[in-house]
Structures are given as C-alpha cells and as structure tokens.
C-alpha cells in the first residue's frame, strides 16, 4: 500500500515539474530574439528589439566578444567586421539569449598542397593535389565547392574537377610521358594557385658507348642516354667508366652533360672497358692497341 502511495507522489511531482517547464518555455518564447539561424561571414546582422530603455548586449563568438549598451525598441546593428569569423555566436540581450552561426562566404583563396615536388615521368597516380578552400576572411568554406585541378606538361593539359568535402578536395593525377616542369593549378571560383612539379626521367633504359684513341689515352663516350620512355636522363647523373688492364683498374665517374657522358681513360694495349650508371650496366668494349 505504501509503495503505491509513493508512486502516486512521484508521478504528481513529475507532473508539477513538467508544468513549470512548460510555463518557462512559453515565457522564454515570448522574449526570444529574432535572429536568423545563419549569417554569411562579413555581411553584418540587424537584430530587432522590443521594449524601452537601455539594455546591455553581449555577443560571444569565435575570436569575438562584444559588450554594448543598446536602446531597446530600436534595431541593433552588428557590423561586417564584427562577424568575420565563422562559427557559433551567442547573443544575450536583457536576459534573453539566442545563438546563430556565421558561415564562410564565397571562395576567395586556396591553400594548395602539391606533392611531391619531383616525380618520375610516365607514372600513374603519382601526383597528389590537395586544395583547402577559404573565403576572404580565411574561413574554411565547408559548403561543397567545385575545385578544378589542371596539370599542364609538354603543352598537354589534364583536368579534373572535384567537389570539396568539409572544405577539402583532392585529386591524384598521372605524370606525363615527357619530362619537364609541369604546371599544376588548382582553381575554384576566382581563386587559383599554381605549383610546379618537376617531372624527371627515370633510370637509363640502356647505355651504349664507343671508345676512340685520343692524345692522352682512350676517350670513351656514350650515346645520348634516355630512360625507357625516351626522356633524356638529367645532366649531372653519374656514369662510371671502368677500364681494366694489366696495370690495374681505372675508373672515372663522369657526369652526363648535354645528354652524353664521356671520360678519358689511360692508354692501354689490351683493356676491357665497361660503363654503368646506378644499377644499369651498358655495353663492354674489348680494347686492343690497334683500335
């Protein structure tokens, strides 16, 4: 019996609490500030007010804290400069509270990450571009935006448009068959950023050399050295010439210049001359004195 009485009391108390909450909600609604749910960054805001006399307005948002005495019954202006940072703002006026969101404006700038800065030519999915879109106040634009990635190399342009998600868009592109400095551009709206991706030749595909007698010994010289896609291997790449004869082994680490490498090897009547660059080995010449 006591248990039933306890339950009845509990239900009665809950009903009273609910009634009070409804009354509070009705009272609050009656004094609610008329503020839009979202405002574009940098566009300013007008808040209508009712009543008379002075009141204190508080606005708190990302990087913003405003305290101002306002005249009730007049419109309250929040300037564009006061609402630049995107995020949630809370307004308090005369004991009434409300909140709204400042959202980013149109895309004005892009932070563009292009990786890597050097890639081997003729390689699929090797260039990555990631674009972060911002408005003029450096707010990340979270609304989906189209971003166009363009990679121009050797007069040919590869283009791809991606839509941002949470302010970020990315694309993976192939490097072109021909080596050179590729222009990688990300653009959205009026914003555009350019990066340079150096597309470089890969390892030599093959090395072929010839040898001739010269005044100081033997002059060994390669044909133009290319990678397997036909790109010239960059100047400065080391090419090692080796001559082995009865006097020992002679090596010259020559550099490719203007597409070829050459080295002077000591004179010999019977030598084996070989050439290599990195792990790629070229042809071998059996040098006889009469050559």
């Amino acid at each position: 019996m006591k248990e039933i009485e306890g339950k009845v009391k509990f239900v009665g108390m809950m009903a009273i609490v609910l009634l009070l909450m409804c009354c509070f909600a009705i009272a609050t609604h009656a004094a609610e500030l008329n503020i839009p749910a979202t405002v574009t960054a940098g566009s300013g805001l007008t808040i209508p007010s009712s009543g008379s006399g002075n009141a204190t307005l508080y606005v708190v948002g990302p990087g913003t804290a405003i305290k101002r005495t306002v005249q009730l019954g007049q419109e309250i202006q929040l300037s564009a400069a006061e609402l630049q940072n995107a995020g949630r703002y809370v307004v308090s006026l005369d004991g009434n509270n409300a909140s709204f969101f400042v959202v980013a404006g149109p895309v004005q700038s892009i932070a563009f990450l292009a990786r890597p800065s050097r890639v081997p030519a003729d390689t699929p999915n090797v260039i990555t571009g990631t674009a972060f879109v911002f408005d003029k106040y450096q707010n990340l634009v979270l609304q989906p935006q189209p971003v166009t990635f363009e990679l121009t190399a050797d007069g040919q342009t590869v283009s791809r448009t991606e839509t941002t998600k949470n302010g970020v868009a990315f694309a993976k592109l192939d490097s072109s068959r021909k080596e050179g400095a590729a222009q990688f551009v990300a653009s959205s709206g009026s914003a555009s950023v350019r990066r340079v991706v150096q597309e470089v030749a890969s390892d030599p595909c093959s090395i072929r050399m010839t040898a001739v007698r010269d005044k100081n010994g033997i002059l060994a010289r390669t044909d133009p050295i290319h990678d397997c896609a036909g790109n010239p291997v960059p100047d400065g790449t080391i090419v090692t010439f080796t001559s082995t004869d009865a006097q020992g082994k002679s090596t010259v680490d020559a550099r490719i210049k203007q597409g070829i490498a050459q080295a002077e090897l000591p004179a010999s009547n019977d030598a084996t001359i070989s050439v290599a660059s990195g792990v790629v080995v070229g042809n071998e010449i059996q040098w006889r004195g009469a050559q």
Partner: protein
Amino acid sequence: MKRILPIVIIVLTVVLIAMATIQPNSLSPATSPDGAVRALFDHVKARDYKGAFAYVANSGDMDEQAFAGDLAGRDGSLRTYSALQQADTRVLHATDDQALVRATLEYATAVGAFYDTRDLKVVKQGDRWKVDWPVVKEPKVPPQVIQENYLRWDVITRGSNDDWGAQDVEAPRVRIISMNAIPQGPNTIIVGEIENEDTVPGFVSVGATLVGKNGDVLGEETSFDKISHTLLPKEISPFRIDFPKVPLSTVKSVRMTPTSVLVPASADPVIGVLHQRVETDARGRHVLKGELMNESGVTVNIPHVLATYYDAAGKVIWVSDGYVDNALLPETPVPFAVDLRDDLASKVHNYRVTVNEYMLQQGE
C-alpha cells in the same frame, strides 16, 4: 778604482753583445747517416728549409725552392696546412760511403695525423754525411684552354612569406643499398653504401645506433668523414661508422639513419682513379694504390680517397680512406695509397675507389 769599474762595465757589455750576436752553429756536420737525416728533418720541423737544404747532397740537381715545396707542400695542398711533428729514422743498410735510411714522418694536419715513410739514400761527402734527396719534378701544366661546360644546381627554397600550403622542394631520395656490421677486435664497424636515387644533388650523412640484447642503446655514431657527403644523381658513396669498444657479440640490432638535404652543387671537377691495384708496401702491409687524375681545369687542393672492398658475393667487407697531401693539378696524375686490413685482403674480390674533393677556390 774609478777607472777600473767603467772599463769592466764596457768589457762586459762588449762580451754580452758578442754573445748575443754570435749564434752557435746549428748546421753542424752530420757524422752518421741517420744523423744526417735527423738533422735535415729537425730543420724541417723548425720550418728552416734553408738549413735543411744544407744537408742535401745533390743540391746541384735541384733548387732550394723545389726542395722546400716538396716538404712544405704547394698549391694549397694538405701538406701546406700541416706541421712535421716527429721523424724517426732507421738505417736499413750502410757501407762506408753510402747508406739507406728509412724516415718515418708524422705530420699534424687539420684532418688528423698524417704519416709518410721515405727511404732516403745518404752519401758521405768528405767527412760529412748528406742526404741524396730524390728529385721530384714539379708538375707543370702547359698553358692551354680547357673547355668546361659547368653544370650546377641551385635551389630556391620556400620563402617566409609563402602561404602554408606552398610546397618546398623536397630533399633528394637516398637509399642505403648495402650494410654490413663487422667486428674489429673489441670494436664494431658498420660499413655499407648509400645511393642518391634522385635527380638532384644532396648532402647526405649516415648515422647508426647499436641496440643491445636488452633493447638498450649501446652507442650512436655517424659516418663523419668516411663518406662522400655531396652525392650527385645516381652517385654511390661508401660509408663507415666505427663504434670503439662495443663488441659485435653484444649487439642485437643496428638502426640506420640516412639523412639527405638538398644543396646547391657543382658537377665538376671529374677525377679519374687510374691503375688501381692492391699491393704490399715496404713494411709488408696491404695497400690499395693508384693514381688520381684531375680531368678538369681547376686545381683540387685536398683530395680524399674512399675505397670500398667487396667479397666474392659482392658484399661490402671494408671501407678505408685516406687524404692525399698533394694538390691535384689539371691533367696531372698524383699517386695515392690507402690501407687494406691484412686479415681481409684474402677475401677481397673487388674494390671501388671514389674521391672527395676540397677546393679552396671554386673555378667558377
């Protein structure tokens, strides 16, 4: 008495002035073969090349300047930055009028002690022993024009005003292509090779950490100068990292840390390594000898030779290095020799020599 005191003072003054003026004769004649060699090098130690030249028997065959250049170095070579610290002599054989004396010389240089061994012929002229100094013909490069197409890499790096998304040029891609931990008495030596796989030059360095059986760090070292730090595209450099007093038996694993930085660099000069062969020197030690040939038109002041030794399986089993104390003039061969561990000599199946160059003034 009044006159005696001034006279005494005057006489004393004259005596003191005479004592100060007349120096003892330091060029005392050598009465033994090794005495002549010692006396010569004592003067060299004091940088008194004129005095040293007085002990040269064949002074008519060479001039004092060439003699001084042979001992003091020339063309900004390592020898010009060195000082003779010690000269030990030993008579190899002697007769009444000539002898062969071995001089073991130790120079102090900026890169550590430098040793030179010379077998000098000593002859008796009258009652004096003098050194028959070997005439070294100073290399002369004939006047000529050597055409060079200088190749250089310059780097534009990210500026402080660039936005945070602006990419910087990346460091070159390098890879350790071989590594071998070998014991040397109570020491552990890490040898191997590193390759610049990229198309741009890099300043590379290799560090190693020895981890013990309990996971504790036994030591951390770097290759220091036992590596070619500046690697051009596709260039391979040996490296050697010494861990003194860390026995290999206590090592569980080795952590290697190759690092590379993109640097401006020049592709020149090209140095040929000619007539490489392994021989035994006068003391019976194995050495790798050869000649360095500067194929460019600028002088290389201080050459540094790095030799990599491979076994029959192509594995790196040792790396040795040595500085050459002569400058490399264009188109002029200069001999070099680097040591090879005698206990490894029989295992060496192949070897490769690379050269670092240090230049006081770039010819650009």
